[in-house]
Structures are given as C-alpha cells and as structure tokens.
C-alpha cells in the first residue's frame, strides 16, 4: 500500500521534536509541582483534622453495623417485616414533618419578599446609586455567608424555643441567597424596554415595574422554588438546636440509640425531600416549559 504521508528531513524533525518535548516537559513539571503542593496541603489538613486511620479501620465495621442496627427492631427482626412497629410514631412524625415543610415554606416566602424588595438596589444596571448598591450587597452577603443554623442558635435565645426561630433563620438565609440570584437575573435583562419606558418620562419605580419585572418574573419563580427545595433539607435539621420541625425528634432518637426510630425518621425525610423535588420540578415544568428545568 502506498502512503501519501510526507516524512520531514531528519534535522528538521529533530528540532520540532525537541521543541515539543520541551513544551510537554514544562507542562508536566507544572502539573507535578501543583500535585505536590496539593498533596502537602492534604497531609497538613489530615494532621489538623486529627485523622486517625487506625480508629477508622478498627471502627469501620461499626459504621456498617450501625446501618444494620437501625434496620432492626428491638426484637431483632428486620424493620420491613413489621411496618406498624417500625412506624409506631407515624402520626406524631407526620405532624412534625408537616411543621418542617411549613417552616421552610413560610421562611422561603419571607425570604422571597425581602429579596424582591432589595434586589433592584443590588443589581448593577438598575441600582439608583452606587453607595446604596454597595450597602445592600454587603448586607445580602452577610445574610448568606453566616450559616442558617447559626442564626437559628441566636434566634432560639432571642425568640424562645420553637419553630419561629427556625422560620426567621431560614428567612434571613434565603433573603441573602435569593437576593444575589435575583439581582443576577436583573443584570442580564435587555435594557431597551427600560430605555423605552424612561423615554416616556416614567419614574424609576415605573421603569422597574413595566420594563424589568415582566422579563425577570419567571426566573424569580424558578429560583424561589429551588430555594424552597433546599430549605426543606435545611429545616429538617433546625430541630437540632431547638428551632422546630422533625430534627428535634431525630436528634433525640440518635442520641438515645432508638435505632429503628432513626431509620424510620430518615426514610420519611428522604421520601419527603424526593416528593418535594419532583413536585417543584413538575410545577416548574408546567410554568415555564421543559427547557428551564436545569
């Protein structure tokens, strides 16, 4: 078979090869160096986090056996052989689960309202003054960086034990997160309608209402639903610090080694999170068509 590949002269080839090898060698060196730095960071982190591989390996069986234990009833039978015994507290747990969902719903709703009220000030293209934008952005950043459960810890002391602290903690965290996402949507809008409305002599408020809002409202709803999904997860642990919901019952079950209760509550939480994921996905699909589901 004849080949049409032309072969370069040997000294030409050698020069090209040398350049190629040099380029590859530089790349390899960079890769090796960064890998070494990363590995060193890992080792330091391992010392910092008191990693003890011996305890890990000697006790690992108890991680596996933990799942074995939470899947057994007190009489030793597997949990799924006796549903009535496994879910003995179903009514109480369902009520608490309902409370959890309600906490995240009310928290998300308050968060949406505040995020809506502030996001036009935080967006680059619609903010009336740059100092205002700076202040609002820093406030939102603060609300989003401090973890929700830290707010809950403080609110439990200020507002007393109970779901109210959880709702307010979730509301603040949602305000921070949604405020940022909303303002990013606003920064992506087409500015021509705004100019059109302004050219008729409209005020800033009318510009927002008639030019920006119609473009962004669908995105807002989509992010709000997503946030609701996230908040259900968050609300399920608010009870750990006494801020209401199913977390209270779960931490008692884990701390007091009521094994089958742990698995029952976990199953209920996971199923609820699934249902909410699917439900909000369905609503989003109905509202904005399939393509916006990311």
């Amino acid at each position, binding site marked *: 078979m004849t080949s049409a590949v032309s072969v370069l002269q040997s000294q030409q080839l050698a020069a090209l090869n040398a350049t190629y090898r040099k380029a590859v060698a530089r790349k390899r060196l960079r890769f090796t160096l960064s890998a070494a730095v990363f590995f060193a960071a890992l080792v330091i982190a391992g010392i*910092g*986090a*008191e990693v003890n591989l011996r305890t890990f390996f000697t006790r690992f069986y108890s991680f596996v056996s933990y799942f074995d234990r939470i899947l057994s009833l007190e009489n030793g039978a597997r949990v799924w052989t006796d549903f009535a015994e496994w879910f003995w507290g179903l009514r109480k747990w369902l009520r608490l689960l309902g409370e959890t969902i*309600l906490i995240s719903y009310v928290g998300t709703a308050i968060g949406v309202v505040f995020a809506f009220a502030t996001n036009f000030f935080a967006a680059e293209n619609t903010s009336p003054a740059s100092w205002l934008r700076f202040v609002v952005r820093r406030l939102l950043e603060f609300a989003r960086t401090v973890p929700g459960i830290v707010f809950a810890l403080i609110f439990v002391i200020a507002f007393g034990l109970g779901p109210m602290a959880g709702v307010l903690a979730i509301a603040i965290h949602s305000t921070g997160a949604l405020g940022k996402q909303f303002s990013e949507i606003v920064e992506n809008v087409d500015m021509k309608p705004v100019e059109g409305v302004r050219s008729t002599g409209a005020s800033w408020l009318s510009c927002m209402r008639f030019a920006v809002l119609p473009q962004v409202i669908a995105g807002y709803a989509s992010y709000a639903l997503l946030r609701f999904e996230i908040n259900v997860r968050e609300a399920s642990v608010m009870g750990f610090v006494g801020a209401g919901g199913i977390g209270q019952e779960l931490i008692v079950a884990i701390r007091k080694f009521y094994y089958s209760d742990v698995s029952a509550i976990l199953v209920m*939480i996971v199923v609820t999170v699934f249902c909410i994921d699917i439900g909000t996905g369905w609503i989003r699909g109905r509202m904005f068509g399939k393509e916006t589901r990311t």
Partner: protein
Amino acid sequence: MSRLPAPDQLELRARYPHVFDRPVSARLATPVMIVLAFGIFSFGLVDLDFSPTRLLSGLDQLGWITLMMLPPDPGSSLPLYLKALGETLSIALLGTTLAAVFALPISLLAARNIVRSNFLRFPVRRVLDSIRGVDTLIWALVWINVVGLGPFAGVLAIAVSDFGAFGKLFSEAIEAADQKQVEGIRASGGNALHEIRFGLMPQVLPVIAGQVLYFIESNTRSATIIGIVGAGGIGLQLAEQIRVLEWQKVSFLILMILVAVAAIDWISGKLRFAIIGQRAVT
C-alpha cells in the same frame, strides 16, 4: 400620512381565539395560585405560633444581643479559635477531596453514555439521591457514633454527603462530553478503558476540577456548622459561646468565619480561572 386600516375586531377575534377568549382555567390560574400561596402562608404563621408580641419582644432581645456583641473581642482564647478555624478548613479540604476521589468511578456508572442499560443506572442514581437527601449534620451525628467526637467525624460526614452531590454532578459532566473523541479512540483500536482515559477524561477533568473547587468553598461554610453537633471545627466553639451568652466572643467568631469564607472564595476563584481559563463557571 397614511393611516393604518382600522382593525376588524371580529376578524381578529376569529383569527386569534387564544388571545381574546382564554379558557376560564387559564384566566383563573394566576389569581388562584396567589390566593393559595397566601392562604398557606397565613396558615403557617398561625400554626407556627407567630404573634406580633413575640416578634416584638424577640426583636427587642435581638437588639440587646447585637449591642452586647460590640465590639467583637476574643478575650484570651484567640489561639484556641485560630486552631479551630484551621480544623474547619482541614475538614473542608479533606472531606471534599475524599468525596471527589470516591465519586469519580461511581459517576461513570451513573452516566448514560457509559452505562447504556437503564436497569444498571437506576439503582446507582437512587442511592446517590438518597445520600443527598440526608443533611450533612445528620451524617455527622452518625459518624460521631462510629469514630467518636472530633473533627475526623466531620471529615467523614462531609465526604459522604458530598459523595452524593459529586456523583450526580460528575455524571452530568460526563454525559455532556463530546462523543466524537471517544469514537476516535475506538477507531484507533482502544478498548473501553482507553476510551475513558484518553477520550473522556481530558474533556471532563477541567469541569470536575472547577466543581471540586466550588465545593471546597461551599464546604468551608458547612464545616463551620457541623461542630454544633460535636464534629469539630469552629462551630463547636461558636455553639458553646452562644450557650454561655458570651456575645463578644460570638461576634468575633462570626467575623472569623466571614473572613475565612471570603479568603477561600477569593483563592478558589483564582484557581478556577487558572484551571479552566476564562470560561464562565456553571
């Protein structure tokens, strides 16, 4: 000036019935949804015992607490807090790395273009979903039962809960990869392993590296709170100081967290751009 012909209302109505005569269900949908949303909201307020008096007295308390937080002051425990912060950062780094290492092979199993059979992929995906459905704090409680109190339990908790998230994200990145390069490897006689190593990985790794960096960032936040249940790091100190009402120390700790998170954000942003170039991170 020419005038436009006057629109014939009847003809327009006949031509665009979906604009003029929308079905009742479509016209009612928005108001019904608003009323429903508002109804659930007010029911929630009542059911979760919100009351204006509680809100006001709580806000009053909160005002006092804020006043007592000023100025932030670590007292004599600054070295302790710095050590706790180091612990938190170590937890985030180690946990995320562990999760990424274990999630990579599993994500191949969950990707549609690697494992063709729905039958095999479905259980892997559901397991990943279940792991994600359980919060990091709950995993921390479980691991405390296994390896005892301390930061190591935190590392394992973050590793497990991120494993679920990474499995999903990585498999999506793999599904989005271009198949032509894989076909090229196959055409030159490579086996399935070669296809993955030389066809997929060069495309997928930069995306994955970006996601891992992003998670290290967000895990710094998670790692600050798992201490609340006893899994080490700065959250332990924070929860303790809140319980004993040492507000100046609390505000100092919160400040430390904010600074640390901002620093990690900045570093990982730089690294991300260095790895994936100027493309936007999604």
